[in-house]
Every structure is written in structure tokens, then in C-alpha cells.
């Protein structure tokens, strides 16, 4: 998967009609590894692919895993 690839389309109206919200949420699943993040500019309107946040985190992934990830590209 490359940055900007279309991954999913969803029917916002269907969600809203059924009483659900359409908010798109991005959260980190290893919060303790996050060292710091830049401020998110709340309220700003963005286009997809624009920079939102810069995340500093500690990562000790094995080299083998890294190469596998690259191969899969």
C-alpha cells in the first residue's frame, strides 16, 4: 500500500440515515511507544494526502520484518 492509494469507499448517507456518525478516526494501537506528536490543527479543512501530524515513536522492529514489508510492496 502506497500513501494516497484509495483503500475504501463508504456510503456516508447510509450511516447517517441509520443514526450513526460518519467521523473518520485514526488512532495509534501502541500508544506507549509514542514519544511525541505535533499539534493537530483542529478545525482546519484538509484534502486527503495533506500532512496532518508528525509522530515520533520508539520502534524496535526486526530487520527481517522490515524487508518483508518492503517485498510485499
Amino acid at each position: 500500500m502506497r500513501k494516497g492509494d484509495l483503500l475504501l469507499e463508504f456510503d456516508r448517507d447510509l450511516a447517517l440515515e441509520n443514526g450513526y456518525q460518519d467521523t473518520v478516526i485514526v488512532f495509534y494501537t501502541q500508544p506507549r511507544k509514542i514519544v511525541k506528536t505535533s499539534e493537530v490543527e483542529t478545525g482546519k479543512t484538509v484534502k486527503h494526502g495533506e500532512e496532518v501530524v508528525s509522530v515520533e515513536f520508539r520502534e524496535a522492529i526486526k530487520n527481517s520484518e522490515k524487508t518483508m514489508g518492503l517485498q510485499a510492496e
Partner: protein
Amino acid sequence: MKSHEKSGKQILSYASFCLGNLGHSAFYGVMSTYFVIFITSSMFSGMQASIAGKLIGLITGLMVVIRIAELVIDPILGNIVDNTKTKWGKFKPWILVGTLVSALLLLVLFTGIFGLAQKSWLLFAVLFILIYIGFDIFYSLSDVSYWGMVPALSEDSHARGIYTSLGAFSGTIGWNGLTIIVVPIVTSVTYMVTGKHEEGAAGWLAFAAVISALAIVCALIVCFGTKEKHNIIRNSAKQKTSLKQVFGAIFHNDQILWPSLAYLLYSLAYIITNGILFYMYKFVIGKPNEFWVVGVIATIIGFCISPSFPILNKYIPRKWLFVAGQTCMVLAYVLFIFGRNNVILMDLGLVLLNINFAQLVTVLTLTDAIEYGQLKNGQRNEAVVLAVRPMIDKFTGTVSNALVGYVAIATGTATAADMTAHDINTFNIIALYIPLILAVLSIIVFLTKVTLSEKKHAAVVEELKDKLAEGKIENDKEEPDASVTNEIVYAPADGELMNLSEVIDENNKPFPGKGFAIKPSRGRIYAPFNGKIKFTFITKHAFEIVSDEGLQVVVHVGLGTVNLRGKGFETYYDDG
């Protein structure tokens, strides 16, 4: 990215794939059910009864052993297919070669290896074993390739679903169609050859030839009508699962275990009855020429049941659909036992027998159990879970083979007039009373032990989401020695940025964890960085991705959207 227009090529591809399974599954029906009936009724007619009995016992025993061995062999064959490289792709050559060779070998078997048994039964037995094993391997190669081809035909999960359901649909027609045509073909050809109105070897050979030809034609249609795509990364290697993994997954996840057991009970009952119905028409009712009705009714009901399931499921939870289907089955047995002399009651029984939601409910429950297992054990076993149901089907198919063989040996060349009250009683116990008990047990198991309803699954996913956000699912140790890396996260959608704490979920709680949110203006989600998709929730509303640098995030689309169960979501990627 692909647009979703249904171009001519796309329709041709769907239709070809669909037709492919018509011949393929009819062929499977011949080898699994009718071959046994042929062996026991016609293959050794005219031979000394004691030798014929021995050979029948040997052959049916062998078939059971091979079917069980197949469970282990299939992954090996899958590997062979995966490692094949030709300019026609890796699946088509095996579909064609597998079908051709297995069709030819099956025909040789249907000739009684050219009448060899009459000359030397020992040589016959040895050759039979060799040919049957060869036949089974080539059949499995075509089977593995046919279904393995689906991911290669489209990268869009929606289109894959269409391919799979089209295949399953025509499979039902092929399978039930056999029941309709078997007696007319076998008796009319036998009559043409011998002048007698009965089932004979010549008729059976003609039947096998017709279906083999159909299988070959259908295989050719698949090969010419579909196109393997080369531009995408497929990870079919990941789909290979060993028997051990399957059993491990079943026993470590009670919501895989119990639905599997309930399905096993249902499947045993259904397949025992189906395998033995031919004998019921032949011996108990004494009207083998009316057997085609069974196929017609099964086909018509099959047409109605699958499409009606999603509609009914909108109003009725799947648990109660399972119970309703099984109750129909129980009633069907009651009708078979008490109403067999009345044509209308028999037909009504056949209708009820085929109203079953067990398979659909089981598939849905098992897929939901993937997230249940992830919450419980922290492991997702998608490929394993999806392998459970076909494996149960293979197992019950084996039991049915063995049982049909047993009934056939017990009845030998008898006709309805030879049946004593004791024989009929034995028949009733095997074909009706035992399945009746199995059907009742499946209801009990499902009602008392299967707790993973649609609602429960939504709750499991919510809990899983919270735990993921709190870092309780992924390995989240602080690693003070690890180097600090930087990753920039780009907006995955158009819209207005929000803080996570501003997001209030459907239970009026702020969204837990660290991250950000976007109030979207369009319903499109794009990759926020270079990386890999780790997994997608069954309901498609959320997925976890890991960046090339190692940052792991979940993209969660909408709140409460888990309840849409995938409706309104279309994905454009492969996990991995």
C-alpha cells in the same frame, strides 16, 4: 483504481466462472455419491457374491481412507499450484489438466477397469487403488485451482464475493441436477443396451460419460472466459492452513467450537439422509423412477432459500433462523417416517428438509468469531476459521460414503419385494431416526452454547476497538532502548480535522486513546502513509495498518457503523 462498471468482459468473466462450477460440482456428485451406488449395485453383477462383497468392502473402505487423507493432501496440492508458472497463469492449466485426467480415470473406473474384475479380482483391486488415488489427486488439483483462482480474478472484495456466490449457486444446480437426471439416463441407456428396464453397468457408464464431458466443457469455459490478473500482490501462501492449526483454532475459541459442532450435527443428518434417499425410493417406497423429484425439490428450494436469507435476517436474528431451519428438518423426518405412503406428504417432507439456514448461519457466526477470538486470545485466525466449514463438509461427506457403502452391502441386489420388516426397521434407524436425533441435538447446541449473536459481535468489536486504542491488544511495551523514528501521517480523507477528545461515541463517551479524527466531506478513505494493511474487521468499518517505519494505527470509519455489517463499505485492497 478500478471503476465498478460492469463491462462486457466482466460479465463474461462472472458467467464463465459461474458455469465452471456447474460441471465441476456435478462431477463431484458423481464421484462421491453415485460412484458408490454404481459399485454396489452394478459393477460386480454376475460375480460370485462373496468376492463381490469383499471388493465392495475394500473399495468403500479405501474411499473413506482417501477422503480423510485428502484433508492433509490438499495444502500440499495447493502449494504445487502456487509454485506453477506458465504463460496461462498458475490456475488454468491445473483446472484443465486436473479435470481432463480425473474425468478419464473416472470413466475407466466406471467400466470396471474394462471388465477386469471378472477375470482377476486381485489385479483389479490393486489397479483400482492406484487409479482411484490418481483420480482423486487430479480432481483435487482442479478443485483447489478453481477456488484458489478467485483472488486472482479481482482485487475488489465485492467482486470476489460475487464470484464466490456465483460459484456456490451453480454448484447447487449441478449437484441437485444430478439427482434429476441420474435415473432417466441410467435406466434408458441400460434399456437400449440390454433391453431391460433396470439400472445396469452400461447405463452407469453413460451417466458418468455425460457428466465427465460436462465437467470438461465447463473447465474449458472457465479457462477461456476468465482472466487471471498479474498486477497485484496475492498472498495465497498465507491461506494454507494445517489440520493442526484448524483444530487449535476450534478448541481455543468456544464460539468456533460450538457453531462448528451444531453445523456438524446438521450436516451429518442432512448428508446421511441425502445419501440414503435413493435407497429409500428403491427399497422402502419401491418407486426408484420417482427419485428425480428429490432433485427438483432441492433445486427449487435452494433457489429460494439463499436469496431470502438476507431479507429474513433483517428482521429475524440468525440464531432463530437456524432454529427455524432445523425445526423444519425435524418435521421433515417426522413426515418421512409417518407419511411415506402419501406422495404429497413425502414431497412436503422434501421441501422442509431443504429449508435450512444452517450453512449460512454457520458461515456468518464463524466469521464473527474471528473478532471474538482476537478479543479473547489476541489472535486473528481468518484463514483457519474459513477452512473450518469446508473441512466439516468433507468429513461428513466421508461418513456418508461409508454409510451408503454399508447400506449397499447390506441390501446387495435386493429389490423392494425382498425387504422384511426388520430390514425396513434397520433402514429407518439409519436414514431417519439417527438424523432426527442429530437435528434435535443441533438445535440444543445452538440455543445453549452459541452466544455470538449479531448484537454480541457488535459489542465485541466495540470492546476490541477500545482495547486497541488503549494499547491492550498490540504489543505495547515501552522500549527505552529502541531508537526514535519519525513518521508523518497524511490525511486519509477530505474534511475537517478534529481532536480525538472531541469525538463523542454512540454511548456518549469520548473516543479513547491517542490519534485524530476527520469530519469527512466525501466517503473515500486513502492510505495515510506507505505500509501494509494488517487486517480488516469482518464488518469492513475499520482496519489496522502499519507503516514502513513501524507505526501502527487503526483507521475507524464512522461510529456505530459496526452495526451496518459491511453494508455501504467497499474495500480495494488485500490484507498483508
